[in-house]
């Protein structure tokens, strides 16, 4: 069936061969034609030599999640020919390098196999092994451009921008594009029935990954101290922060830096540094992933009890243990929500895409300082490392950042005595003083039992007094964290509830279900503790499909623990194989549950 702007291209390569820039070029050129596009990178935990895939979903309808089919497979890796061919939808296409004789397994009824002698073309036209390998990647972009009808002028412009300072690279890259493009035009019937066509669907949009967006958000939030230990898939967040700071955080007259990035010896130290800096009044953060959260847990509990702001980004990957470091999951929900021993619970934010990573990076600092507690931004590998098409970022210069209750030197001067943990406003938040500001502000920060006066205690009532106030603060948190995004119609008895990167798949699934006359409401939770609106949404429905990317229905458990949600109403829809969730999964599972309900 012929389609316009609804096609999925998957490229199978070997990592370490430089295919990333070629794949980025392909995605970006489609975006530049005004067509919404989704790019997903499936890569191994390895530097060189293992299979890797890149998927470009052209979606004129503007869906956000990965697709559940492949129309055109670019099979550049002989190791994975068999499984790549099996991935292609019936009636689809497979492109391979026909420099060498075609292997037997590259045959399947109903799949059109297209051979292009990419290696031979590049060997004849380029010098040097490295250049030939790189140009082979660019050449397959040329072939795909011809097959999908991508505008070569757009590709040329992109290359000119990329290599603005190196004109000769524009020429050689364009030469490689033309090798593939012309070969395809001469040998195949171009374009294929599934093609692209310029439209106006990307106005006001950018293509960016979540880690870059979060790093930029931290810079705009005024973070000055970043402490971290490298871990996939969070590393590029600090790389981005460093790169933005290197440009924008240098005093023009002195050349001195107004930021301090410390590569810690481990995650135990990274979070310790964040707490030390935040204790002194700086905005400080650390990016990490699941194993790092495990290591940081002791200090997260300390920060909860001693009431020190901290911003942590957990770019989740597949657990448990080392798990699959380059695959995605939402499986750190419980370990973050209740990190550390004793009675602790922590504010979590759930960004759904890079735009929210930028926004929530800023609100995380506001909330952490307002609530004097750790705030964990629960991103994941899918959001953090993939390029997403999202609305352009806005920054409101008139917005005043929330620094929370910090007593000034003047206020301290007027006080008879300052008590660190005294709740004077009834919201569970006691004003804090910063070191070095005034002699009267001094207090002893400790993780041991303390009273509202800030002194050490082993007195039952004095201890419990502080623990109970922390619960008051928890309710304050509930009232100020970002509320859910809800789509509601009183005619629907069922609702889908999800978080973070489940958003795209669920929204698309709603459309597909609606096409089958199954209408469901929608609630995307954006923070923990859960707002009252979440409680109401659950109360309004007979059944709630809780869609999350982990095995143990952690979000569902948290709904039960935090807002007493009725367990029998909450139907878990769990996707946890490490790949980003897609709409097909949600639709299938909802239909299964409906069928089960009818049978019962």
């Amino acid at each position, binding site marked *: 069936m012929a389609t316009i702007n609804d096609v999925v291209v998957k490229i199978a390569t070997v990592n370490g061969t430089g295919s990333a820039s070629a794949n980025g070029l392909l995605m970006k050129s489609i975006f530049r034609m005004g067509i919404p596009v989704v790019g997903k990178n499936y890569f191994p935990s390895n530097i060189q030599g293992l299979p890797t895939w890149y998927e470009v979903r052209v979606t004129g309808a503007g869906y956000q999640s990965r697709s559940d089919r492949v129309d055109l497979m670019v099979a550049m890796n002989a190791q994975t020919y068999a499984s790549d061919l099996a991935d292609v939808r019936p009636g689809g296409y497979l492109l391979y390098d026909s420099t060498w004789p075609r292997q037997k397994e590259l045959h399947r009824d109903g799949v059109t196999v297209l051979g292009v002698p990419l290696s031979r073309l590049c060997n004849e036209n380029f010098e040097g092994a490295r250049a030939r390998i790189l140009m082979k990647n660019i050449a397959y972009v040329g072939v795909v451009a011809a097959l999908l009808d991508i505008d070569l002028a757009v590709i040329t412009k992109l290359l000119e921008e990329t290599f603005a300072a190196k004109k000769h690279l524009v020429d050689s890259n364009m030469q490689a594009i033309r090798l593939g493009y012309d070969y395809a035009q001469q040998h195949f019937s171009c374009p294929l029935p599934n093609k692209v066509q310029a439209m106006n669907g990307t106005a006001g949009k950018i293509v960016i990954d979540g880690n870059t967006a979060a790093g930029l958000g931290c810079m705009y939030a005024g973070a*000055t101290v970043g402490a971290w230990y490298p871990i996939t898939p969070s590393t590029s967040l600090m790389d981005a922060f460093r790169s933005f700071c290197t440009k924008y955080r240098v005093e023009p007259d002195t050349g001195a830096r107004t930021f301090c990035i410390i590569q810690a010896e481990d995650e135990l130290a990274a979070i310790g540094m964040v707490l*030390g800096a935040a204790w002194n009044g700086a905005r400080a953060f650390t990016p990490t992933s699941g194993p790092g959260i495990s290591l940081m847990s*002791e200090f997260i509990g300390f920060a909860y009890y001693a009431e020190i702001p901290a911003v942590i980004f957990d770019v989740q990957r597949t657990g448990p243990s080392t798990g699959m470091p380059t695959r995605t999951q939402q499986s750190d929900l419980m370990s973050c929500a209740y990190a550390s021993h004793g009675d602790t619970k922590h504010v979590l934010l759930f960004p759904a895409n890079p735009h929210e990573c930028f926004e929530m990076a800023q609100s995380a600092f506001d909330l952490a300082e307002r609530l004097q507690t750790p705030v964990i931004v629960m991103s994941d590998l899918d959001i953090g490392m993939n390029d997403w098409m999202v609305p352009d970022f806005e920054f409101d210069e008139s917005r005043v950042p929330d620094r929370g209750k910090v007593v000034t030197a003047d206020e301290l001067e007027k006080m008879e005595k300052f008590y660190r943990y005294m709740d004077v406003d009834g919201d569970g938040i006691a004003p804090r003083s910063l070191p*070095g500001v005034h002699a009267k502000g001094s207090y002893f920060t400790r993780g041991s039992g303390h009273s509202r006066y800030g002194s*050490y205690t082993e007195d039952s009532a004095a201890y419990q007094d502080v623990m109970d106030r922390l619960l008051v603060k928890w309710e304050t948190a509930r009232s100020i964290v970002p509320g859910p995004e809800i789509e509601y119609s009183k005619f629907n008895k069922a609702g889908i509830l999800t978080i973070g990167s489940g958003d795209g798949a669920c929204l698309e699934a709603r459309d597909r279900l609606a096409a089958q006359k199954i209408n469901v409401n929608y609630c995307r939770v954006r923070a923990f503790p859960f707002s009252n609106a979440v409680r109401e949404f659950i109360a309004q429905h007979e059944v709630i499909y809780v869609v999350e990317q982990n095995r143990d229905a952690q979000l569902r458990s948290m709904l039960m623990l935090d807002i007493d949600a009725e367990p029998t109403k909450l139907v878990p829809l769990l996707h946890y194989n490490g790949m980003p969730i897609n709409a097909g999964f949600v639709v299938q599972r909802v239909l299964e549950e409906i069928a089960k309900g009818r049978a019962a």
Partner: protein
Amino acid sequence: MSYIAKPKVAHPSLPKNKLGLTARDYEGTVSTLCAGCGHDSVTAAIIQAVFQLNIEPHMLAKMSGIGCSSKTPAYFVSGAHGFNSVHGRMPSVTTGANAANRALTYIGVSGDGDSLSIGAGQFVHAIRRNLNMCYIIENNGVYGLTKGQFSASADVGSKPKKGEPNEMEPIDPVSVALALGATYVARSFSGDKEQLVPLIQGALTHKGFALVDVISPCVTFNDHEGSTKSYKHTRQFYHHVVDADFVPPAAEIKAAYEQGSSMPVELHDGSRIVLRKVDKAYDPTSRAAAFAYLRERVNAGEITTGLLYIDSLRKEMHEVMGNTSTPLCQLPLESLHPGAAELKKITARYR
């Protein structure tokens, strides 16, 4: 930790420092450590050192981890901010605190259990960064709060109150610090305040990582016959190799030093440390020589004390990074981003 405040009555004739404060103003709450604990003597030395250095109490940050030693910041300078963190993590908290506010003076108090076992990783990395702080280890060879297990600094052959002598090689914080290039390395004894106070003053003034390893006997669990960290053993075997006199900025060096044995070292704020070499052959500016000397004396069963090594020129963390002299925590947030118009330029690259 004690919550009993000391009575605030001070005798009018008590000497005052340049800030008009008396030594009493640098005290903390009443110690709850065992009577005779070496740590209380170190606390007293800290109080005297900070008082004499004219440090405003609220400009001092007292950092610690977990253990008997880590309780002591409550017992000195009540007017300073304290951060009693988790076990072995005082160095990382101090690193972050210093990153955010370089205007404060940081004193970390740790123990052999806190720094040489769980905290060994953080201890060595604070040295590696040449973090500007005074790092005191109150070293008694045992875990006191959990009732007397050997720590990693217990010497070979040292006997516990009950059970078998220690057979494992000790981790010596001074040797570790020298090996890693710490820029101020001292050792002293809690029972030798005359030596200890100027060493702490030098450590507080030195710009960079200053270690003061203090043998501080545990009267309850490690002060018996056969212990190598007892008062008796330490008094018998410790040797001054280089003593230090601390001379504040602009003050004259008044003491008469014997020719060839004294060596003034200028610190960044104009104050000086005059090294008095008990052993004239000792060179406290040579890491290699200091290390060799130390090992030789250890083999002879001696405990070498004094300011064993100093390098007053190496850059501390902020200098290495090229950071602004303004404490980062004092920079207004609105000065820390390039604004809405620039954001549009940044995101234009992602079109």
